[in-house]
């Protein structure tokens, strides 16, 4: 599976690129690539420290935020994720449909995430400067 890059259509001009970004933010047809978004668990923590767990409880995302996240996310390798990013302990997870296939999604606080099914795992990142408007993600 390949995460559709946000700049796939707007190779043309900066103006079109801007329109595309706005479209993402306003949940138009371009945001419908990921459908049937189900939220299974919110505000989880891989850290067992009760202080961290209580902090992570605040990590709550809406369906449209999840959609925006994956629409804007860029794919990175496991190695890039491992060496280039701190993996914050807070995360939410669920399922979604992309191109008729069901995937398990996971988003960590701080803007990293993944999509997995039985065949494939795709790591993604949404840098703050490109997704600062997804409230509560960063």
């Amino acid at each position: 599976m390949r995460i559709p890059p946000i700049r796939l259509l707007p190779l043309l001009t900066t103006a079109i690129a801007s329109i595309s970004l706005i479209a993402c933010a306003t949940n138009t047809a371009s945001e419908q690539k990921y459908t049937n978004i189900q939220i299974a668990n919110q505000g989880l923590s891989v850290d067992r420290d009760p202080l961290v767990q209580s902090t992570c409880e605040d990590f709550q995302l809406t369906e449209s935020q999840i959609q925006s996240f994956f629409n804007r996310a860029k794919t990175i390798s496991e190695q890039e994720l491992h060496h280039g990013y701190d993996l914050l302990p807070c995360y939410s997870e669920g399922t979604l449909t992309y191109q008729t296939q069901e995937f398990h999604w996971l988003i960590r606080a701080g803007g990293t995430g993944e999509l997995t099914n039985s065949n494939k795992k795709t790591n993604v990142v949404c840098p703050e400067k490109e997704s600062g408007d997804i409230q509560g993600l960063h």
Partner: protein
Amino acid sequence: MLCVFNGVISDPKIKTNIIPNIEHSKLAKVNAIILHRTSASTVESTLNAWKTKNTGAHFLIAKDGTIYQTAAINKRCWHVGLLRSRCRIEDSCSEKDTEIIKKALHSSGSWKSKFKKVYQHEKTKDYPDRYPLNSDSIGVEIIGAYLGKSGDKGLFEQIQKAQSKSFLWLMTELLEHFSLSFKDDVYAHDSIARKKVNEGVKASQLLQEYCQ
């Protein structure tokens, strides 16, 4: 005994492959060794990645057991990341400590800034009251892909026999060279920083079993 010249070890068992961009300021004192896994299955991909970054570790152990020294042991490498609170994990925080950490975690600002505040608080402490930092530790990376299907609790590729042999030899030499304890001064990366849950755990167990 290791023969070291300007931070570079001269030994037929170690291949010198210094990557200047992962070497940073002077590493004056080594208090600990941190065990890492690469999340990549080949030496080439890791070395190539390090050549374009400023993060990396001092040693890299290939699947065939080849040990690469990639940074001088008198230079700091950026290999630790966001430190976790030692006293929280070991249940030894003072009330004041707990308050500071609680305040940091519930502060306003980005998620990263919350965990960074905890890290900055830890940095004010002396080792071993805190976990080791880039400024007082050596990093040893063992080649191995991350096998987790989903999330951060998966396992890494098994450490190969040749890797294990080289790893134990290198650790024995480094522990002796820096007068460190295998019990108290060797850490799996995940146990001290915000990384995959099992990073370095198997290597740490391997060392404990070997030394006991």
